[in-house]
């Protein structure tokens, strides 16, 4: 599996993502600057976590207008995989790759801790190596992770099996405890928790490994 991580100014999880990908794939990950207009030939694009553009205007709003986003939209339209984590999830919703929006945490506090998630759906390259209903623990670190969409959109996401992860103890007020959702074509995953931070026991767990294994199996 060939992968690329997009580098935005003030992103801070781009190298975590690259380290996780390189550890799991054994291959070099390409770092792509946000002002580039073309993607290299890759199977997976990662929109990493961080605070792109200092969260000016709204989290992810400025990054969603970056030059590289045109190429990412084309990649996604052609069925290419995109993993959008944390700020990446915010960018993906702002760019229209995923429905809904991420708002200020209901408790108004930045939440930084490991959280237990329930794997809701295994019908995707991202989750096929998990068991349905399995509990996994991923860290969250965000101030704006409160997922919002209107009821019709939420019903549709649930009806189409596109709610992939739910919080077991909702840390941010997200609608229907949603932690991660999939695009209509099932090739773009957006989630607030960080799978890339749990691939090495050194950093506290390995529950994220199965996500990368699923992607590698599907996309290689």
């Amino acid at each position, binding site marked *: 599996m060939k992968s690329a991580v997009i580098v935005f100014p003030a992103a801070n999880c781009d190298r975590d993502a690259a380290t996780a990908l390189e550890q799991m794939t054994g291959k070099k990950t390409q770092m792509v600057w946000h002002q580039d207009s073309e993607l290299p030939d890759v199977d997976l694009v990662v929109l990493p976590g961080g605070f792109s553009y200092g969260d000016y205007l709204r989290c992810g709003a400025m990054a969603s207008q970056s030059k590289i986003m045109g190429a990412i939209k084309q990649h996604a339209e052609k069925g290419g995989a995109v993993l959008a984590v944390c700020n990446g999830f915010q960018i993906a919703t*702002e760019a229209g790759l995923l429905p809904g929006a991420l*708002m200020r945490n209901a408790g108004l506090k930045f939440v930084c801790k490991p959280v237990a998630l329930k794997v809701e759906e295994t019908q995707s390259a991202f989750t096929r190596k998990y068991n349905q209903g399995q509990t996994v623990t991923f860290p969250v670190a965000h101030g704006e992770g409160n997922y919002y969409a209107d009821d019709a959109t939420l019903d549709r996401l649930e009806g189409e099996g596109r709610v992939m992860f739910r919080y077991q103890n909702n840390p941010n007020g997200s609608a229907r405890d949603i932690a991660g959702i999939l695009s209509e074509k099932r090739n773009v995953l957006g989630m607030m928790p960080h799978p890339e931070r749990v691939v090495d026991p050194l950093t506290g767990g390995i529950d994220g490994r199965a996500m990368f294994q699923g992607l590698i199996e599907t996309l290689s």
Partner: protein
Amino acid sequence: MKARVFVTLKNGVLDPQGKAIGHALNGLGFASVGDVRQGKVIDLELAESDAGNAKVALKEMCEKLLANTVIEKYEIELKS
């Protein structure tokens, strides 16, 4: 031409910051304060003299960047 854009959360979208402000005002003794909603004001200078053109451009700016219409609504005010 100068313009002012107001961006606020849509009705029905929970505004935890507004709520916290309301609680703080109540705590300061302003007992009459009920619901509080917080928003943004954006002032722009435009190299445009036609109000109609300015409004069209500003609407596009709001839709594309200034507001996230999933959760926010906007109002445009022109000042000559």
